[in-house]
């Protein structure tokens, strides 16, 4: 059992971002060979078809399904959380340890303090506020941070409520 645990832990570090997240289509959707609209179509999924999400790239997610595997538009899918509702299987819990560093145990014993009641009864903590102020960064530092990662600004207006941009 201990070996299995160690093996799973190692595997999860190289595993894709999603550990097979179940989802379903909200409309008829084409599965593409590549994450682009003009890529070749592998198959067409009907509405409410079940898929498993493996990873995401921009607005596209890589999926497996009975109809075929490939890329579909992320917003054509909604997550199926019936599995989560039934509680994690032992296997999923193990995978989660490696993936996020927080197991169910950590959550149960961790610091909460942000329930509705906690917020209503909170007393001010000026020392922490001072710490927070010390962490703040200047405009110049933020601009350098963006340049360091080659982040480029884009000109884009806010979106109207109903229409496409």
């Amino acid at each position, binding site marked *: 059992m201990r070996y299995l645990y160690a093996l799973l832990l190692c595997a999860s570090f190289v595993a894709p971002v999603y550990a097979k*997240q179940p989802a379903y289509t*909200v409309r008829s959707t084409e599965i593409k060979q590549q994450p*682009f*609209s003009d890529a070749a179509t592998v198959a067409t999924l009907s509405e409410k078809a079940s898929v498993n999400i493996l990873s*995401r790239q*921009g*607005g596209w997610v890589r999926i497996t399904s009975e109809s075929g595997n490939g890329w579909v538009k992320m*917003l*054509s899918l*909604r997550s*199926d*959380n019936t599995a*989560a*509702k039934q*509680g994690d299987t032992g296997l999923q819990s193990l995978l989660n340890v490696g993936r*996020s*560093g*927080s197991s169910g145990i*950590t*959550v149960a014993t*961790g*610091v*909460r*303090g*942000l*329930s*509705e*009641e*906690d*917020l*209503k009864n*909170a007393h*001010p*903590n*000026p020392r*922490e*506020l001072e710490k*927070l102020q010390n*962490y*703040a*960064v200047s*405009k110049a*530092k*933020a*601009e350098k*941070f*963006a340049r360091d*990662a*080659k*982040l480029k*600004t*884009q*000109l*884009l207006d806010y*979106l*109207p*409520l*109903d229409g*496409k*941009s």
Partner: protein
Amino acid sequence: MFIRALLFSGLCLLFSFPAHAFDFDLQKMLSIAKKTQQATKTIDEPEEIEIGNGIAANLLGASSLLDDSRAQQYVNQVGRWLSLQTERPDLPWKFGILESTDINAFSIPGGTIFITHGLLQKLNNESELAGVLAHEIVHVLRKHHLAALQKGARMDIASDLAGEALKNKGDPAVLDKAIKAGTEVYARGLDKNDEFEADRMGIVIATRAGYDPYGLPAVLQMLEASNAQDSSLALMFKTHPAPRERLSLLDKIMSDGFDAYTAPAQTDKRFNSEVSQRK
């Protein structure tokens, strides 16, 4: 008929008073009218920052900051960069990771944003972090919490807030009341439409900053897949519309044009070294 007669006699009585007494009454009435009118106006920026600091101190009383200055600096840099793409770049923007394992994020008037360690650990890259922070930034830009505070506060507090009581670090009792009323907004939550607006504008701010526009939708999809009964999500789910509803709205407005924007690979590397590998 009787009322009209009463009114008339009242008027007669009024005019029979000495002139100075009448002036006094009129001034008082005018001042009340002015205050009521001001109650619909917004609180000015120094007051907003002052109230915000009080609320931030309260939230920090409920959960301390995560003791990891490197991660705190990282989140501040992402957040400050995002703030520069908005119409309020000069606010004293501050970003903090709360040590709480709850999954949530908070926006406080005047430019303070909190993300819980619980939520940060669930994120996969810098674009997802940017999506969450940009959503919270919009609440500050649009003064959603100030409006909720004024709407939910008792009439006397609301009128004090709009009046002169807070000017130049004025009445501390009024400030205390405002901060208390302001903190309660976080237990109650904002209007649904404020949340939708924060999503709609948030994706644009993240895109302007050079991030992948789908960071926020990806986080919403993660939340949608989570167990809604989990206590770490209780307050977030209580105070926000269902992730499914939020995704449907983004689905309607995000055209294929958004596919053209991608985040540079360096941001992924950075997220891994500053967050993922330090969990």
